[in-house]
């Protein structure tokens, strides 16, 4: 009998529903645990076990010291096993809500999920959350195992009631732009004693369906990535020497044969395929999952990060799109903040522009939200720094998935599934004018710049900026001053001082400064701008060298002593929430262009600034 294809699956469900025990039982009853491992397990059970005199099979997968001490699963454990019928890669996922991101790690590549339910407890909030995450990641086969029925004397009525609830849950999982889970099987179990795991149970005469193992061995996964359009993210360009240029990567979907034309999605450039090199040498064709090196018959301008597709079935190309996010970072999502984004083999930066809604996994309700915290799911719109080639996740898991990375910590901040491109992104093209920034700079006889003063309230930013502007004016320069307080009276009057509003405040100020620079002006911007990420955002809006970060390094005590507006006194009395330096953080620049000692006289500081910038304005530096 030919083997069924490799099955990737996960076990999930709430804490204490018996996931690790089930896997231990599955491996044990299938005869797949080595004798010395079993002996070690017996020792571990005496030390950490929770099953009295019996061997605690959960300890087989709970491999971290902390897990064994606490008796819970923290991170996903991978298990590999094979029966004569099939090879399996199984992810044993944690149930604790705090570790949902680790559960999602197991779900991302799985074709099937076993969702365990403790028969005594029924469906719990975490059961719903895990079911929603499985649906979000596009898992189409769900097995609900109703476990611990031995503790209820294998009561059929309990099983039928929970099974009906599980079916209702799966039917209600209608995440917009994603298909519901179409295939559902419910199996009564006792993982601890092995009923219906690998062997049918005489204690459940009322159940006529398959055992869990039999179901896993025989199920057909109807994923047909081979039938989808050809997609090939270029991973690495192999330039052995001048005579060889190969495009190395893994076919994400579809198939390709020698002579077929391939198109670079973002540029439209096309060339026919001349060679396909696989692990065994030249081959006439390749299909999804194959790691190959493609050689094209004509020069083709492309590199790592480009996506190859057939000229007749191209992906979307856009820089704005709607997507579901599963937030995984401990730092909550801040709309407007820049994150590193990886889609296929492309890295770019992107920000969330709006949160359309947050999803309540239990009720499927769409809630209004201004942020997403760790383990929450939301539908968002995003804007990327560069145009991206992608498909909707529902039609192609390989080209519709992305991750976001926190730029400060390098932590993986979110898993994303693209719903659709935004129409405004595909129909708006920037207009180029012949009189540009350079032309205006020549007319004004200066190089435009942004002098960005950052520092605590009352640190002296505005005082020094005013002096610098006066000197520049007398030197014949064309300037404009932007001030946080002034902008908040007009353009930004809808914004407060929450972290989210602070990000938007600086984004708008940056856009205004950028327009001024386009107009050829020297901009003096004074903003507390407490976050590094947003100062970097403004820096990246501008051309290299146009952004001069000036750090007003004034001790908090001195600022508070000056307190010209009485704000520190009020903040310390608790009358002002989110006041920088008191109850809201300030992140000093790591490598500012200029650091000013706020304890020196303002005129001295203004001259330091002038000495630094005058050569740049006149073009001598």
């Amino acid at each position, binding site marked *: 009998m030919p083997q069924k294809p490799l099955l990737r699956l996960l076990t999930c469900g709430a804490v204490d529903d018996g996931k690790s025990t089930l896997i231990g039982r599955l491996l044990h009853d299938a005869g797949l645990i080595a004798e010395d491992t079993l002996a070690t397990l017996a020792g571990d059970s005496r030390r950490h076990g929770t099953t009295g005199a019996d061997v605690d099979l959960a300890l087989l997968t709970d491999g971290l010291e902390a897990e064994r001490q606490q008796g819970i699963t923290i991170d996903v454990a991978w298990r*590999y096993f094979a029966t004569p019928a099939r090879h399996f890669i199984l992810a044993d996922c944690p149930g604790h809500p705090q570790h949902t991101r680790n559960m999602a790690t197991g779900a991302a590549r799985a074709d099937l999920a076993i969702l365990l339910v403790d028969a005594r407890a029924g469906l719990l909030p975490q059961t719903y959350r895990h079911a929603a995450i499985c649906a979000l990641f596009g898992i189409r086969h769900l097995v609900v195992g109703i476990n611990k029925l031995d503790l209820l004397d294998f009561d059929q009525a309990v099983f039928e009631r929970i099974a009906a609830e599980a079916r209702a849950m799966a039917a209600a999982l209608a995440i917009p732009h994603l298909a519901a889970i179409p295939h559902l099987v419910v199996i009564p179990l006792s993982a601890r004693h092995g009923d219906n795991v690998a062997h049918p149970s005489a204690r459940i005469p009322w159940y006529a369906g398959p055992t869990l193992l039999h179901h896993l061995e025989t199920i057909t996964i109807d994923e047909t990535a081979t039938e989808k359009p050809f997609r090939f993210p270029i*991973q690495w360009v192999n330039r052995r020497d001048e005579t060889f240029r190969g495009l190395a990567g893994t076919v994400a979907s579809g198939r390709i044969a020698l002579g077929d034309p391939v198109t670079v999605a973002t540029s439209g450039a096309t060339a026919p395929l001349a060679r396909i090199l696989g692990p065994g040498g030249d081959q006439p064709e390749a299909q999804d999952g194959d*790691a190959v090196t493609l050689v094209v018959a004509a020069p083709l301008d492309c590199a790592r990060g480009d996506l190859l597709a057939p000229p007749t079935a191209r992906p979307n190309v856009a820089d704005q799109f709607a997507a579901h996010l599963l937030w*995984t970072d401990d730092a909550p999502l801040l709309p407007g903040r820049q994150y590193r984004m990886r889609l296929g083999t492309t890295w770019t930066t992107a920000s969330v522009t709006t949160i359309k809604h947050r999803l309540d996994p239990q009720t499927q309700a769409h809630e209004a939200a201004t942020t997403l915290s760790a383990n929450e799911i939301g539908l968002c719109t995003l804007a990327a720094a560069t145009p991206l080639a992608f498909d909707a996740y529902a039609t192609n898991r390989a080209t519709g998935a992305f991750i976001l990375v926190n730029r400060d910590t390098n932590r993986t901040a979110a898993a994303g599934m693209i719903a659709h491109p935004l129409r405004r992104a595909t129909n708006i093209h920037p207009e180029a004018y012949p009189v540009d920034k350079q032309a205006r700079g020549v007319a004004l006889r200066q190089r435009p710049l942004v002098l960005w003063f950052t520092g605590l309230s009352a640190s002296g930013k505005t005082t020094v900026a005013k002096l610098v502007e006066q000197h520049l004016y007398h030197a014949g320069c064309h300037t404009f001053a932007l001030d946080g307080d002034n902008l908040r009276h007009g353009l930004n009057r809808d914004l407060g001082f929450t972290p989210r509003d602070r990000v938007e405040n600086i984004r708008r100020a940056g856009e205004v400064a950028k327009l001024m620079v386009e107009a050829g002006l020297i901009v003096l911007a004074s903003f507390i701008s407490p976050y590094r990420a947003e100062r970097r955002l403004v820096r990246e809006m501008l051309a290299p060298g146009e952004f001069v970060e000036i750090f007003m390094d004034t001790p908090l005590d001195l600022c508070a002593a000056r307190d010209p507006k009485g704000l520190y006194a009020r903040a310390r009395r608790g009358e002002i929430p989110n006041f920088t330096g008191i109850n809201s953080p300030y992140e000093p620049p790591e490598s500012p262009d200029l650091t000013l000692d706020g304890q020196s006289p303002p005129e001295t500081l203004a001259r330091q600034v002038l000495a630094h910038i005058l050569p740049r304005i006149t073009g001598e530096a």
Partner: protein
Amino acid sequence: MPLPPHLRRLEAEAIAILRETLASFRAPALLYSIGKDSSVLLHLAQKAFAPAAIPFPLLHIATGWDFAEMLAFRDRRAAELGAHLLVHTNPDGLARGISPITHGSRLHMDTMGTEALKQALDLHAIDAAIGGARRDEEKSRAKERIFSPRTQGHAWDPRSQRPEFWTLFNTSLGPGETMRVFPLSDWTELDIWTYIAAEGIPVVPLYFAAPRPVLRRAGALIVRDDDRMPLAPGETPETLWVRFRTMGDWPLTGAHESRAATPAQILAELAIARTSERHGRLIDHDQDAAMERKKREGYF
């Protein structure tokens, strides 16, 4: 012998991980332990970058207690492949005369294994170390990501690993941090031998059964590779047909009795084996959660 479909899939995935490492890091290196997993890794690297040569160096941490046959095999393979081979031994440990026999396995492995590896990574400014570890070997390894970052001091924090979604690996590193990369994460011992047999990959002859001089120590069969291991009064090594299931320093690695002398015979032996692969590794039994402790401190 054609590859079974699941192994063709694992081969493609491992090749993709190797290419990803090359494309994403400044100075990757392949941790070459001379064992069977390293041999498979080397074979996959040849395929991943063909027709170009393997574009990064091989790094071997020599503890001073490697089997002589392993060192000979290492030099032969590196020469055949035209590979750039880096060999590092902890000079401080060498000067102190650290030995598994007089200092015990734990101090020996910490000094000549873990510490030496960290020195070599720093010395050669390697920012991504590719290793042949598999998740089916041991419980704490079963928990590790494919791209697994290390702190500036090469430590692993298993309690707060980055989630790893699809094959969209997060290869970002902060200053001084390094990455460990495990292309064989999803392979099993059986997969490795099936692949070796199908592809005809050369491995150290110690994996194959032969008559060898054996001492019985703490229930393990130790093949005495040289006379640094003292004999008990009146003790003489007995000659037994043995082979190794896993490679390590010879005083710390137990052999088992076997007549399996080809990859096909090894596969037949594994099909009925009732003990796990690392059973013969004395260093894993130092203490509860020994592997996790070693990994946290930087061991591969």
